[in-house]
């Protein structure tokens, strides 16, 4: 198998449009990726033919919906190499996954004197829930420093590791910088002091195969919509032994076994963490997205993505006034920058006028912006359907931005 970006682009109908009379160049994949026909069709098909509530009705449609819904869980399990579908919990995204672990595992296990480590480059989704739980338990949230290049400071991390550290929650790929963290090593080191580890894989899953067994992480969270799937669906993986011990932090229907006013017993895994009617169409859509991605030659996809990002970085290196924010050796998907003397918002607006979609601002990662002493950046983030031509389009558009602003 190989990979041809021009053929791939035809799978994504949204890309074939003009914005402000210019062909769309979509470089905001870190925020959300576009959806292939396979995903759009799976969702439509579900609503046209199979829609029903899951695990409830005593009828054919409900059985069918339940079947597809659980099949999607199976697809996720295989995709990340979990041991069992009991370890695959549907969430609405990475944010809910982190909150679930913080409020369920954290509230039960943390106490004054304990420490939770997160890196300085975390998305707010992996800071705020821990802050909330630390405030309630008296545990301390400690940031792991990041170097000038935007890499995790491993020496500082090792120095922080002691018996007080009960949990390490870390991003695999930084959405603000594109830094790829050495999570396998992080997990191993954290385990040596007895800490549990959650990996925020929001920006990683689209780029290469994830193997939770090989990583040996305790929890892994990601969002469907950054993996060519729909919004409102995500996955929390957790090791079964841990999930079994944890008490759900949200209650409701479906997550119970029996309810009386005196006592409720919880359903088995994974349902005990899935109160209420789930995002059935979303799960089916995510299943279709994973099928789509795994049917591709993933090595060829990764090589193509690497080539496009390297090309972008090469062009950036020779571009006057271009300041790359984050210079990690190992990076994926993201090029974050400022143009000297230009506000990122101005750059973003003027790029948009030329059909180039980027994100500007602090990328929900204010602490790392502070670290680099900027209030925000322009972020071009890439997906499998981007090409070298898109990169050229970005730089041509930047030429025009300069003409306007300087």
């Amino acid at each position, binding site marked *: 198998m190989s990979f041809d970006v021009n053929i791939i682009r035809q799978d994504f109908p949204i890309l074939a449009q003009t914005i*402000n009379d210019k062909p769309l160049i979509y470089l905001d994949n870190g925020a959300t990726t576009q959806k292939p026909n396979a995903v759009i069709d799976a969702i439509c098909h579900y609503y046209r033919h199979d829609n029903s509530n899951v695990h409830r009705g005593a009828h054919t449609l409900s059985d069918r919906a339940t079947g597809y819904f659980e099949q999607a869980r199976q697809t996720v399990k295989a995709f990340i190499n979990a041991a069992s579908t009991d370890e695959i919990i549907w969430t609405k995204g990475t944010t809910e996954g982190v909150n679930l672990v913080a409020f369920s595992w954290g509230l039960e296990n943390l106490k004054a004197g304990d420490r939770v480590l997160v890196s300085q480059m975390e998305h707010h989704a992996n800071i705020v829930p821990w802050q909330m739980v630390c405030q309630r338990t008296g545990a301390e949230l400690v940031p792991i420093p990041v170097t000038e290049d935007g890499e995790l400071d491993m020496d500082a991390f090792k120095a922080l590791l002691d018996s007080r550290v009960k949990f390490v929650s870390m991003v695999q790929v930084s959405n603000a910088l594109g830094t790829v963290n050495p999570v396998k090593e992080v997990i191993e080191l954290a385990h040596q002091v007895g800490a549990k580890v959650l990996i925020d894989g929001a920006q990683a899953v689209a780029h290469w195969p994830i193997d939770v067994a090989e990583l040996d992480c305790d929890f892994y969270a990601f969002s469907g919509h950054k993996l060519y799937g729909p919004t409102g669906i995500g996955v929390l993986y957790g090791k079964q032994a841990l999930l079994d011990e944890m008490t759900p932090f949200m209650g409701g229907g479906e997550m119970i076994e029996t309810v009386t006013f005196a006592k409720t017993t919880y359903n088995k895994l994974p349902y005990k963490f899935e109160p209420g009617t789930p995002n059935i169409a979303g799960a089916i859509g995510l299943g279709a997205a994973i099928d789509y991605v795994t049917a591709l030659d993933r090595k060829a996809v990764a090589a193509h993505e690497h080539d496009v990002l390297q090309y972008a970085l090469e062009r950036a290196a020779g571009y006057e006034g271009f300041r790359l924010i984050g210079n990690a050796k190992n990076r994926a998907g993201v090029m974050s920058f400022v143009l000297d003397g230009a506000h990122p*918002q101005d750059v973003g607006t003027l790029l948009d006028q030329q059909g180039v979609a980027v994100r*500007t*601002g602090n990328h929900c990662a204010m602490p790392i912006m502070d670290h680099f002493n900027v*209030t925000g950046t322009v972020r071009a983030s890439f997906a499998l359907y981007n090409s070298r031509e898109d990169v050229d389009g970005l730089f041509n558009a930047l030429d025009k931005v300069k003409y*306007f602003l300087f």
Partner: protein
Amino acid sequence: MSSVFGVDITSEDILENLSFFDSWEERYKYIIDLGKELPAIDESLKVDANIVRGCQSQVWLVPTVEGDQYFFQVDSDAHIVRGLLAIILSAFNGKTAKAILDFDVDAYFESIDLIRHLSPTRGNGLRAMVSRIKDAAQA
């Protein structure tokens, strides 16, 4: 204190000038150039109390009254926003409270083609700015 906006350059001038342009390039160039004519405010005024919330970029507004006229010193760290601020000032700067409160800003924004194309975030920032100006005139 007094800038050219609202005095030498009025909202009518802005509308007339914008109507000459056919391309987005010309319109944006004009707006950015307007921003360049906006005098920067003193660094000492860039304090939290003067920040207008609801904008992605930082925006400051400092109202002053002279007799029955209201003057506004505004600034932003983004060029396009400075241009939009100049457009707003053209309508409000040096006016009486009554003129400020009576001014139909929605119709004004509506007739500036550019504003319609602004993202909701950006539009909200402008609206936040206008309500701060109207609040000042109401005080």
